[in-house]
């Protein structure tokens, strides 16, 4: 996790808040955590009713939510989540394409062959061999048969 101390009021030196985040899409503000798959709806909708929120971002002794109170915090959280979601979306697209190729081929394949298939048949994904092996290794949808050779789990 990367972290940043954040000050609400530049003139008041006592009010510092800890903003932590991970590029995979985890954000923690003063200990309250949310992720790219489960995050406060106000990040998507300005008209979201705070009464319906299940996250607690209130500062003890004060009223209001950090995200509402500090637009800079909200923007930073949104940037982290959007980055993670874009990368997740790309990985999902690569994963879908790999599943499709393996299913049509009907036999396990070496990741370098899969990377060539994706480059030719799904140029919009613009994948590298490194990205292909990354998705194959990390996704539960695939299993390794022998070094570098993958099949659908």
């Amino acid at each position, binding site marked *: 996790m990367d972290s940043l101390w954040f000050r609400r009021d530049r003139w008041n030196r006592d009010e510092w808040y800890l903003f932590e985040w991970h590029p995979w899409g985890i954000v923690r503000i003063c200990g309250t955590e949310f992720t790219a798959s489960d995050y406060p709806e106000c990040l998507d909708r300005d008209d979201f009713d705070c009464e319906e929120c299940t996250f607690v971002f209130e500062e003890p002794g004060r009223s209001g939510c950090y995200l509402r109170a500090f637009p800079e915090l909200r923007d930073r959280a949104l940037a982290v989540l959007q980055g993670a979601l874009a990368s997740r979306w790309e990985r999902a697209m690569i994963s879908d394409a790999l599943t499709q190729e393996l299913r*049509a*081929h*009907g*036999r396990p394949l*070496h990741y*370098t*062959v899969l990377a060539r*298939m994706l480059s030719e048949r799904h140029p919009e994904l613009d994948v590298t061999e490194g990205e292909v092996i990354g998705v194959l290794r990390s996704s539960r949808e695939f299993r390794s*048969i022998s070094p570098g050779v993958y099949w659908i789990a």
Partner: protein
Amino acid sequence: MYPDLNLRDWPFRTAPDREFGAIWAGRHETENQLGRILRRMSLAPRSSLYVMWANFGMGKTHALYHLAHLCDTDTPNLLPVYAVLPRQAKGFIDVYRAVAAALPMDRLAESLKELGSQWPRQLSLHPLFADFPDIANALVACLGSDDTRLSIARQWLTAQVGIPRSALNQIGVSRLIRNAEDAVSALTVLTRLLTVGDRRRKLLLMIDEFQRVGQLRARIMTETNVSLHTYFNANSTGLGLILSMSFGRQADVKFMLSEELRSRADPEMLTFDVFSPDQALEFVSDLLSQFRLSESDNPFFPFTKGACMVIIDHIGTRAVLTPRRLMHYFSLVLENWQVDGGPDGELRIQHASKYLEDPNLSMLDIDGDATVGVGDE
């Protein structure tokens, strides 16, 4: 023999069987294509490379056995050699090992004798062995009556590792066949030796399970492709090469072959795709007719046509129709019918339906071989 069934042998085989190479059922266009390709090969001296693609269970290995049978019977100037690409090849040397082990030693010995009778000097000095003179010495060792030398020579020719220097000295060879370059040189010399003396004589090298290159590390896959095209280039005449592969999509063939190999391949590709119900019916009647003890009015005997259609329909509604599935299900029904004391009349629709009733029948029946990961047909 099964006289009650009017069959000289059990016609349904689910694994490729060399002894059944003579049998060809259904797919008459493909049968003609195979015959025509062999005739083309036997006519023109130029070397040729063919790619064979088959969907799962479509009988590509049987087709290769059938080609070997046709060479023996119709085109004797073609010498068929069947080899299988090793499952986890570490390099082209492993492919060479598989091919060298399948080469006919008796034919090599004959060719060597023939060559020796026309060459007054030491055989290893013959221009044919210029690329790899040690081959001549190893083959001479194979001709002798010394079993130890014969055994060493065979091990050496098939690129076995760990042969001691003292053993190499016994057969007069200077080094082992240890890498892709050695393997290509050795294979080239052996191919030339097998075809020497007759411009129309050809080695028909059939490499089965070539799809396994798709599971090799990129370096090994490239080495295999490069070595094969180097070997092909080195034998501009006298070689017919068939690379046979099986997977679900024909368009994937290009990912298994380098551009150089693809550019050398004949435009005519051998393909084996799934059957239609009519083709399946024709396959069954053709198959049975080749095992008849005597002529029969019913081409499907001991089955009735209706029973055949029930079995085909049963398979067709659950999966694609392939020769292997047809063999499995027809064999299952016929075996059960026999166990129940059936050979008294014909196997009818109700019998077929009865033996196909079990809902778990096709549980293990899947397309491809992915459950075992890298297995093969």
